[in-house]
């Protein structure tokens, strides 16, 4: 393709209403060959088009181990995402990507993995979770700490139930104080606090943390207290993007272009970057 900005056409094969304003799509490439050959790595992202409205950047929320389709999850918040929110099964939208770097999971073989996510930041983590679970024999224990403001704000509720039932995963769910319901079985408290109380062992463990900037900041502190070294902690930065390919000049943090050299960074890298995220 000679023009970088022309998207592939994809069909919406399934829609999941995660919360009152968060939706997930299962997408299949119209091009049969691309459906077979499309590959990406966990942590990468794409630009999704609502024709007539524009493009938005979301992660690839599915795992590369699940072939034949991709998934995305987004909150209906602006022009494009509200437009995507009005689409139905069978409708066509656009996708270009995959872009950016990825989580170096091949280097994590044999290690325990601790996932930490807040609110709508579970989608990028979910891609890694399924990638690890689909090859669980290569990795150690899996612990997931997931929190949202209220019970209604938790995404992937079906999958949370599934992970909760699996004996090979430890799932800790929490909601912010005041966000619980009468039948809430999980914890009540902010993610960083719950994380610290979990006493997850840092030894031979990789931590993947995604969430709003303030949550990441406090989780990095909590992980430090638990004994995690900054090199063992991975997170993603999410600045606004338009091109996704290092040209449009929006997502840079100092001289680092998140769309090209990110979005995945270790805590060590984050701590040496300019405060521009």
């Amino acid at each position, binding site marked *: 393709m000679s023009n*970088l900005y*022309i998207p592939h056409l994809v069909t919406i094969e399934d829609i999941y209403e995660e919360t009152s304003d968060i939706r997930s799509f299962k997408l299949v490439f119209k091009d049969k060959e691309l459906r077979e050959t499309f590959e990406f790595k966990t942590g990468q992202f794409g630009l999704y088009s609502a*024709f007539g409205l524009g493009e938005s950047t979301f992660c690839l929320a599915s795992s590369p181990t699940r072939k034949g389709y991709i998934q995305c999850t987004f909150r209906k918040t602006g022009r494009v995402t509200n437009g995507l929110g009005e689409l139905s099964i069978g409708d*066509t939208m656009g996708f270009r990507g995959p872009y950016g770097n990825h989580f170096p999971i091949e280097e994590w073989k044999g290690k325990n993995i601790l996932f930490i996510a807040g609110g709508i930041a579970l989608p990028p983590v979910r891609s890694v979770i399924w990638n690890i679970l689909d090859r669980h024999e290569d990795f150690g224990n899996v612990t997931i700490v997931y929190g949202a403001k209220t019970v209604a704000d938790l995404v992937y509720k079906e999958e949370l139930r599934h992970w909760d039932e699996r004996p090979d995963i430890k799932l800790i769910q929490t909601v912010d104080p005041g966000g619980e319901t009468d039948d809430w079985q999980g914890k009540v408290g902010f993610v960083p606090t719950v994380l610290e109380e979990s006493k997850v062992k840092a030894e031979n463990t990789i931590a993947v943390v995604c969430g709003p900037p303030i949550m990441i900041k406090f989780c990095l502190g909590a992980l430090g207290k638990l004994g995690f070294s900054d090199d063992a902690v991975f997170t993603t930065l999410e*600045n606004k993007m*338009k091109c996704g390919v290092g040209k449009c*000049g929006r997502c840079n943090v*100092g001289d680092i272009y998140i769309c090209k050299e990110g979005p995945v960074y270790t805590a060590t890298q984050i701590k040496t970057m300019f405060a*521009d*995220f």
Partner: protein
Amino acid sequence: MTDRYISKESLGTLITTVNKSGGRFVAPVLDARQVVYKEVASIEPVVDDYILPRNSYKEVAFPQTEVIYKYELNRAGVTIDPVEIEARETIVFGARPCEAASLASLNSVFTWDFIDETYTKREERVVVLSVGCINADDECFCTTVNLSPKSTTGSDVALYETDNGYIATPITDKGKAFVKTYSASFADTPKGEKRKELIDPEKIEGVDLTKLGETLAKTENYDNPKWAELTRKCCGCGACTYSCPTCHCFDITDEGTAFEGERRKNWDACQFDHFTLHASGHNPRDTQYKRYRNRFMCKFHIYPTKFNSTGCVGCGRCIRVCPVRLDITELMEAMSK
């Protein structure tokens, strides 16, 4: 290739010949009482008494707005109709040697890893004919950023004014090929025709580019109170970015209806508050000084270190167009300390 000569009369023939062969000839003309680069069909509107046109000629390769593709929605789904990139021979006449250095910088952004053909296909066909400056104004600061009216970086053919025409020094292969293709317009330099003396704008002594780069590279200087103090009057209009020959930021937007329309690539500016605004409402550059700092960092840290190219060519346009008279060289001096 030795120096050639082009008289003003032959320049007129060159303009019509380029047009006849399907090319574009862009030159400084007077338009609404301002000198601007514009496409010309003849020599009549072309002016030679100017310091620098108000607009940058980057728009010949990076248009203010362009259609990337058209789409149509119907019962069968969506049809995408890619738009052919209009890439024809484009001659930029009268480029100043400072600005000539800029296309290489834009090139470095539009080609690192991913190649943006909407830019490269046009840029490949651009021939830059620079004209050495015999005048400068107070806003010119090319010598402060290590360029000068003598520079030939980015010029394909360097022209030097004489009484009745220009002495032409072909610099690049593209320039040599151009002089060869249009050899009928070029001749041996007539006796008595001599280069007019080039001006040598004064270098701003307080600016040290090396020190400036070192200051910007350190994260501890990122929240230096100087940023806010020195840029407080910036109103965020973005005029500096639109007139700057190395500013490359753009937006991608859709225009049309739910049935048909087009996706466009438009100039954008890092000076606008919505430029980096997240969907959540969070904005990493939530105050004007942070946006100014980003542009400044882009010129003097990101371009030189990341793209190994010139971020600021010292053309001074950002100073001339600034509605609040914010002078970038003041920041350059302050950050050189």
